């Protein structure tokens, strides 16, 4: 039985027995290469679930949709390792109760889909540890290294050109499971902290604010990068910040549901005399 079939069967069992109220997975998209998020609430609909190498979007952001988990019922969700890490962070930041989340874990290498063993988020710690220790993907690194080798001035020009394309549609924010604020700082308009204008200053402000807010929290699922309609390589910014946080604090985001948020926790014996 394929993993897709196994997971459909499991989804049917869970929905029929009332163990979960919903399964968030992937379904057929507009084109043969596209998959779209799918919300299944009836056991009769599980055949619509798909699982293959085109299932890329990190679905964990839907878990914090307003009201979804407030009835304390369980929800099942298809997640890659990055998505599982995201659930850990959401739990650590008190955005959800990990007990309510049933995970259909999977990973993709090449065109092969592998099932990840486990149901609850704490059962995947070995997988997450192996990602922390594993080498980053080669193709991503190439552009990253190129930017790293640039002089500060060249790097500034690179990002200036990229951010000039930004239209402030906020697709990056909306696609990000970590951007769960009910009211983002850019939407606070009494007073208006951040310019709404999509001019060079406004675009820099937005993208830099987001990079800082994601430092030590980003799981590098790539949702923002793929959602960006003007193709800004946002993953590179987040990857840089993740490396920075890993080097400075040995903090790899989303290791466990009790991991302290690195920029929102304080230790008495901290060598710094202040916190930001």
């Amino acid at each position: 039985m394929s993993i897709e079939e196994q997971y459909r069967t499991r989804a049917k069992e869970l929905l029929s027995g009332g163990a979960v109220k919903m399964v968030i997975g992937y379904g057929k998209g507009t084109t043969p290469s596209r998959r779209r998020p799918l919300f299944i609430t009836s056991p009769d609909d599980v055949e619509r679930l798909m699982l293959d190498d085109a299932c890329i979007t990190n679905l964990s952001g839907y878990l914090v949709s307003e009201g979804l988990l407030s009835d304390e019922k369980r929800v099942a969700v298809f997640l890659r390792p990055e998505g599982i890490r995201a659930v850990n962070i959401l739990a650590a930041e008190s955005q959800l109760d990990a007990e309510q989340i049933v995970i259909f874990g999977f990973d993709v290498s090449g065109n092969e889909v592998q099932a990840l063993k486990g149901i609850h988020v704490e059962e995947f710690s070995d997988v997450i540890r192996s990602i922390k220790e594993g080498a980053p993907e080669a193709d991503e690194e190439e552009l990253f290294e190129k930017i790293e080798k640039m002089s500060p001035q060249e790097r500034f020009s690179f990002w200036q050109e990229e951010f000039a394309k930004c239209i402030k549609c906020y697709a990056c924010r909306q696609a990000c499971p970590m951007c769960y604020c009910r009211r983002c700082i850019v939407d606070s308009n009494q007073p208006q902290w951040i310019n709404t204008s999509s001019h060079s200053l406004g675009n820099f402000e937005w993208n830099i604010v987001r990079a800082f807010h994601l430092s030590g929290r980003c799981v590098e699922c790539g949702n923002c990068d793929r959602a960006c309609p003007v193709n800004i390589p946002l993953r590179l910014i987040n990857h840089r910040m993740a490396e920075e946080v890993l080097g400075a604090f040995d903090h790899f985001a989303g290791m466990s549901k009790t991991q302290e948020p690195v920029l929102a926790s304080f230790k008495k014996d901290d060598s710094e005399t202040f916190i930001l």
Partner: protein
Amino acid sequence: MTKILFSDKLDKCVERWKSAGLTVIGPVQRTNISTYAAVDHAAELEFGLVLPDRSIKDLFFPQSEPMLRYTIKKESINTEECLPPAGPRIIFGARPCDASGMAIDDPLFGWDYKDEYWFQRRNESVIVTIACTKADDFCMCTSLEMSPDSTKGSDILLRPLAGNKGWQVDELTDRGREAFRTIADFLHESSEPLAPSAVVENKFDLDACVTWLKNPENFESRFWKEISMRCIGCASCTYLCPTCHCFDIQDEGDTYTGIRRKNWDSCSFALFTMHTSGHNPRSTQSARWRQRIMHKFNYFPGKFSVNSCSGCGRCSRQCPVDMGITETLQEISKLSL
């Protein structure tokens, strides 16, 4: 016998238009995105795209535009109006859906208040459209009473010749004729075989959709919640849309000096309808998606007798969660059976 513009003459035309004082704008591929931008040479133009990622709207209604500068002193308030940068231009190689999108928005920008920012740019632009010879899975012009060679909103329609040799020139407006008079000596009179037009399949029954949308009973239909459940509420569909035209006016600066800007805004955002009291009449994403569809296919045509959609398909093509107008109207077509 018809007028023909051969591709190898285009660079001469660009040069001629430039020396006549026109800015030449066309589809280009830059920094990993395709858009319409000013060029110096024909070689910079990219004619192989189904259509650019960014719509032509940006040229008429930029994402952020200064309206006025202000200085407030103890006894006086000074304002200085900022009008759009003047100058005639020719947009060479627009797609029919983009050109018609501008014509769709004309009545909107002129019905109660004549938006000078829009009309100054409209009046100074010649739109030379190239009919489509290829389409992708997201194109839907034919479902909206348009076609790969629609002339709406264009000053000139170019029909590609077989073998990428050039274009047959259909002059549609005086403005177009005038711009092409400048390059008359580069045009040929002959009849050349045309490249086959793109085939865009009909994707939904527009009339049935409109009837369904106009029925007040369907306003609270469960359909809206179901179809928009995966909508993440970003604005990429509205910002890439050639006809979406909503904006916000913002003052940037301090109490004493600053600039008033007109910035794109989107019905996808919760903040779009947030009242000062904190109440939001469109508090859910489904209400916001319903608004977008209703606006395009019910309210806008109710006022201006034209749908606010030109069928470019960018909304679906770019959606991070694979939604869009096509799917919604296809589902509504099914409901109306």
